[in-house]
């Protein structure tokens, strides 16, 4: 659309599954009649002959020849709507109703404002009570979110965050953590086709103050604060960014269970290592929330036993190499690694980065590595360029140390660990204290 503004007539080609999304993005950009043409999904993995057939066939949306859509899109005269674009204001009301609770529950579900589980109705009284959990004014702007990089940002206030916190069943004392997550700028509801989720970890004194769980079942539905803070983060993400609606503002092919709720606390007192937030420049007495973008895979194991290195190499090689893992370790595992000489998280992270390797041909035979890393490699950006220059059977490193994180949690009923897709977002550790 920027090219159109530069005076260059343009047609954008999309696959048909993205038609609704492409049209809604065009509308939100004030150019609803942007010329678009469609080919069948997928383009990835199709041969040249198959793609040629797409070009010679019809547009699956209009039924007209695809090439006719392209040629006419560049050369057919414009009409009045094309010339004026479409300007409009969109507003959302502050209050809804009055109506019965049943009708309002249905209204929220029909409008895709929930996670399809029952919500607590955000009445004026409940929202006012929630707002007592922070000193910040209800109308203070907290931040902006969007489902993906090519969509518009929506803005939101403290009150709007409180509304979603009520819906999730959170208590007022949890609100500073929820506001911090909202202020991180990272949506927990990416619209990516790859079904991202965000896992969030809380550090510092706030954990004890609000009774967060870092022990038995820390990553399950066994702690009220963990469960409702994580749920609130997901609900506020979908509602404050303009939606998370399949086919429009959500395109994850498989979806992700972590999108219900994925928040826990680090077991700082039982960990032999530095807390995560201290690793990232905060003081031990600070309270923070850290966000990890991923959630696409989870690999689990136990140990460390005699063959831990082989087990870890296999697990690391099974991680998606375009998305580094966060390692969540029970304190038993963490202490076991200290006994093996890894007396800091950084030492174990360095070992993982050095030993997570794939043959170059496997590394590059990946849709997202081709899409995201290859252009950088071709431009000479390291470490991508060296990986591209490697011989097909050469083992190349999958991750850089700064991409891997370790968090300690668990109830010590088992020496269990998980590797979860979880890239610590840039500037992704935010102060909770700032939102008290």
């Amino acid at each position, binding site marked *: 659309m920027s090219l159109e503004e530069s005076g260059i007539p343009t047609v954008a080609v999309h696959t048909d599954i993205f038609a609704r999304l492409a049209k809604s993005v065009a509308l939100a950009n004030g150019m609803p009649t942007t010329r678009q043409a469609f080919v069948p999904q997928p*383009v990835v993995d199709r041969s040249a002959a198959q793609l040629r057939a797409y070009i010679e066939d019809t547009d699956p949306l209009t039924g007209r020849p695809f090439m006719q859509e392209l040629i006419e899109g560049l050369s057919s005269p414009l009409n009045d709507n094309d010339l004026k674009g479409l300007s409009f204001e969109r507003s959302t009301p502050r209050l809804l109703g009055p109506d019965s609770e049943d009708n309002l529950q249905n209204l929220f579900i029909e409008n895709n404002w929930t996670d399809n589980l029952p919500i607590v109705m955000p009445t004026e009284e409940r929202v006012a009570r929630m707002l007592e959990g922070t000193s910040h004014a209800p109308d203070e702007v907290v931040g902006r979110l969007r489902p993906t990089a090519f969509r518009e940002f929506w803005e939101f206030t403290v009150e709007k965050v409180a509304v979603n916190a009520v819906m999730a069943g959170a208590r007022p004392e949890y609100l500073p953590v929820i506001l911090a997550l909202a202020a991180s700028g990272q949506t927990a509801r990416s619209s990516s086709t790859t079904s991202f989720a965000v896992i969030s970890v809380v550090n510092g004194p706030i954990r004890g103050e609000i009774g967060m769980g870092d022990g038995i079942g820390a990553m399950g539905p066994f702690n009220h604060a963990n469960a409702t803070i994580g749920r609130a983060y997901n609900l506020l993400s979908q509602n404050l960014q303009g939606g998370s609606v399949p086919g429009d503002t959500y395109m994850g092919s498989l979806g992700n269970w972590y999108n219900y709720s994925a928040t826990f606390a680090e077991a700082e007192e039982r960990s032999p290592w530095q807390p995560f937030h201290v690793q990232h420049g905060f003081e031990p007495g600070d309270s923070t929330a850290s966000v990890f973008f991923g959630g696409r895979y989870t690999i689990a194991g136990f140990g460390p036993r005699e063959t831990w290195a082989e087990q870890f190499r296999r697990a690391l090689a099974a991680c998606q190499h375009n998305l580094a893992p966060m390692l969540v370790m029970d304190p038993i595992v963490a202490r076991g690694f200290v006994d093996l000489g890894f007396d800091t998280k950084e030492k174990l992270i360095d070992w993982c980065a050095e030993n997570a390797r794939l043959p170059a041909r496997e590394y590059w035979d990946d849709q997202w590595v081709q899409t995201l890393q290859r252009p950088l490699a071709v431009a000479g950006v390291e470490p991508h360029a060296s990986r591209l220059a490697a011989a097909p059977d050469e083992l190349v490193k999958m991750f850089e140390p700064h991409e891997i994180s370790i968090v300690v949690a668990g109830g010590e009923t088992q020496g269990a660990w998980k590797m979860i897709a979880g890239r610590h977002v840039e500037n992704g550790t935010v102060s909770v204290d700032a939102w008290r």
Partner: protein
Amino acid sequence: MSEKLTVHDPRGYPPKVTGKRLAPRLQSLDGKVVYLVDCLFDNSAVFMEELRQWIAENLPNVETPIITPSRSWADDPEMRAKVAAGGDAAILGVGL
């Protein structure tokens, strides 16, 4: 009869949409330069090359240089300027 509730709307605030007009269309593609912008999605280069070949075979008077942005998922003002300076039209693909 159940109690009637008034509740808060849970949505954020969308930005105002400002209409933008489309660029004037060409009278014909004949003799024109139509940039094929490969958006760098996996396999889009193969699609664009097939498109270039189809146009070369069927519209031989249309010039179709293929151009790519510097990286995926990012606006590339330098590339846009190049298209605006040297092109008459553009086809982008294959995007989401």
